[in-house]
């Protein structure tokens, strides 16, 4: 009796799960099998250009990661790029969101224009920056800066990291702005009015009332943003190709170079695995801090 009830329950559970199975199998096939294969390859020495080079190498690929200077530079560049892009775009995004949240003329049009950079294809955006805006011969910026004696500055090559950060900030500011704006719009204007009646000035009410309110939104934006910015590839490929030297080579770009310029599949797989581990650790830590902040906020 109990057995049949249990099996009926089991059947019911399966009937509920069954429609989900195709999606589950699909996700499993396209994410887990390649990942397992990558881990497998990372233990082998395999260069596509050397037929017959495929042989077990143990931890050799991982060993070379920790002694390779290029990888150290790439990790540093990734950190530098992520922190500066997220930091600057959060500040700018907050400022723009504050403006758009107030009663200004042409708000709708302004908001649409502000979102535009996020909607432009990354590759096209980077090309516009590189050729139309920054090209020292026929670019718009050098032309505008000529009266100040900066007419022939080769921004992309002389200040490569600054250029990449600028382009990425340009792309990510609208994203931050949107998320923070959502937070600002949930604010009750009566609270601000009450603060004003109590004699708080604009700076004080921003610091004491608005900022605590939008903080979780800022943190959410920063977390999501950094997961994407860590993987920046398109703009580096189009703008600097990782150079000059290795000045803008981040982890994804280095991986691309090892896999598709050097065709070292084993080594590239090992870098990929290590990159996934690092990203997972950072994301877990960030998420944990985030949730603890949410809980503290909730307890207040």
């Amino acid at each position: 009796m109990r057995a049949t009830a249990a099996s009926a329950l089991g059947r019911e559970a399966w009937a509920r799960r069954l429609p989900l199975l195709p999606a589950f199998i699909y996700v499993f096939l396209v994410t887990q099998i390649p990942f397992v294969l990558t881990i497998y390859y990372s233990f082998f020495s395999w260069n596509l250009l050397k037929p017959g080079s495929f042989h077990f190498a143990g931890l050799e690929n991982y060993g070379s990661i920790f002694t390779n200077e290029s990888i150290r530079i790439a990790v540093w560049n990734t950190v530098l790029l992520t922190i500066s892009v997220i930091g600057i775009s959060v500040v700018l995004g907050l400022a723009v969101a504050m403006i758009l949240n107030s009663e200004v003329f042409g708000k709708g049009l302004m908001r649409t224009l502000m979102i535009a950079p996020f909607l432009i294809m990354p590759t096209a955006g980077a090309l516009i920056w590189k050729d139309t805006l920054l090209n020292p011969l026929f670019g718009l910026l050098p032309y505008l800066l000529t009266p100040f004696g900066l007419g022939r500055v080769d921004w992309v090559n002389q200040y490569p990291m600054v250029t990449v950060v600028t382009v990425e900030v340009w792309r990510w500011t609208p994203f931050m702005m949107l998320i923070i704006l959502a937070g600002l719009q949930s604010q009750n204007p009566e609270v601000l009015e009450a603060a004003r009646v109590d004699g708080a000035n604009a700076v004080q009410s921003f610091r004491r009332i608005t900022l605590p309110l939008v903080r979780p939104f800022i943190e959410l934006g920063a977390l999501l943003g950094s997961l994407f910015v860590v993987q920046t590839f398109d703009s580096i490929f189009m703008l600097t190709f990782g150079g000059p030297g290795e000045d803008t080579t981040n982890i994804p770009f280095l991986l691309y170079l090892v896999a598709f310029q050097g065709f070292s599949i084993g080594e590239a797989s090992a870098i990929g695995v290590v990159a996934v581990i690092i990203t997972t650790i950072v994301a877990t830590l960030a998420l944990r801090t985030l949730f603890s902040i949410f809980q503290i906020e909730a307890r207040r």
Partner: protein
Amino acid sequence: MTGIGLIVALAGAACSGAGGTGGGGGSKTITLAAVDNPQMADLKTLVSDFQSKHSDITVKIVTLPEDQLRQQVTQDVAANSGRYDLFTIGTYEVPLWAKKGWIENLSPYIAKDSSYDANDLIPGIRGALSYQNNLYAVPFYGESSMLMYRKDMLSAKGITLSDHPTWDQVAAAAKAVHTSSVSGICLRGLPGWGEQLAPLDTVVNTYGGRWFDEKWNAQLTQPEFKAAVSFYINLIKTAGEPGAGNAGFTECLNAYNSGKVAMWYDATVAASNFTGAAAANSGYAFAPHVVKDWSGWLWAWALGMPSSSKKKDAAWTFADWATNKEYIKLVGQKLGWAHVPPGTRTSTYSIPEYQQAAGAFAQVTLDSIAHADVTHPTVQPVPYVGVQYVDIDEFQQLGDQVSQEFAKVIAGGQTVDQAIARAQSLATAVGKKYQT
């Protein structure tokens, strides 16, 4: 290839996707992966002529930029996937891939066609596309390098150049005509072994420098190599184009055509793309020299057939059509004689119409190609072949990295000594693989 797929996914690399999706259709559809250049664009427009003669063969042409073509084709051929039946490969790939058995020996096919006349192919090009005296790819287009200059701009300063100038004369002329609006000379600074390193390597060669000695010891720190790199970068900095770090062939061509540079040292094919004042007032000289004479490079785009192709006869029929004498005439008659793919056949240079159209630079091109020697690129003996490259698998990555270091010098991020030291250590690691 799922592993590679994941690597891309991990990197978040949303790069160019999968390209062509393979044959399909009838059994006689052949797929050609072609480099994106003007000569290939012409080929594409003339395919209908081939189709009308061979209605049983459908030709699908996938054009890709050089670096992407190289990646796609290398993956295809290394994985033996047979996606392409023909591809354009360069003098760099042919001997390497022939040795690995990745591409088909075309000599037996050529022997079957008495009208093909392989002896008409320019000897230097034929040699560069051969492995053990067999042709493994048929040349579609060939080039060397030369100096192009605006005669009007130079003569305004009272400067004339001989046919065989030295680099010192060229540098002096470049500095004399250099102003804030017109640069003295355009030299490629764009990183990449096929971009910046191509002209730079010819300068290294003529200074007497070399990448490796006979025992595969890296020689980048030798005085000749260092002097050549310093000379090249100093010339760019004192009389070169602004934004040199991004200037490749196309950028220099645009600058020269719009009169923003007075001289340009680059591929011989460049002159066929000149327009306006650049076309009317240009002078042409052989690659400038220092110690070694005839320092021009040698390059050819050629049609190769992967061993994995399942339609080899149909593929050869097309390769034969696209590289024989008749095709040259077809291009001249249908598209104009300036469109003729240069540098492949000696007979091209005796066609009166072509001589008239190519005029001043035809002889410089032919002589430069004839004198380029891939086995003796520099003064001292070397263990590798190649003038503007080192014909080993690792050179793509090594060359790209080294050129990035030099680009950093051009941008002012480090000194020549620092760049050479890093380049030497990279080259030493590669050389070690050949020392055992």
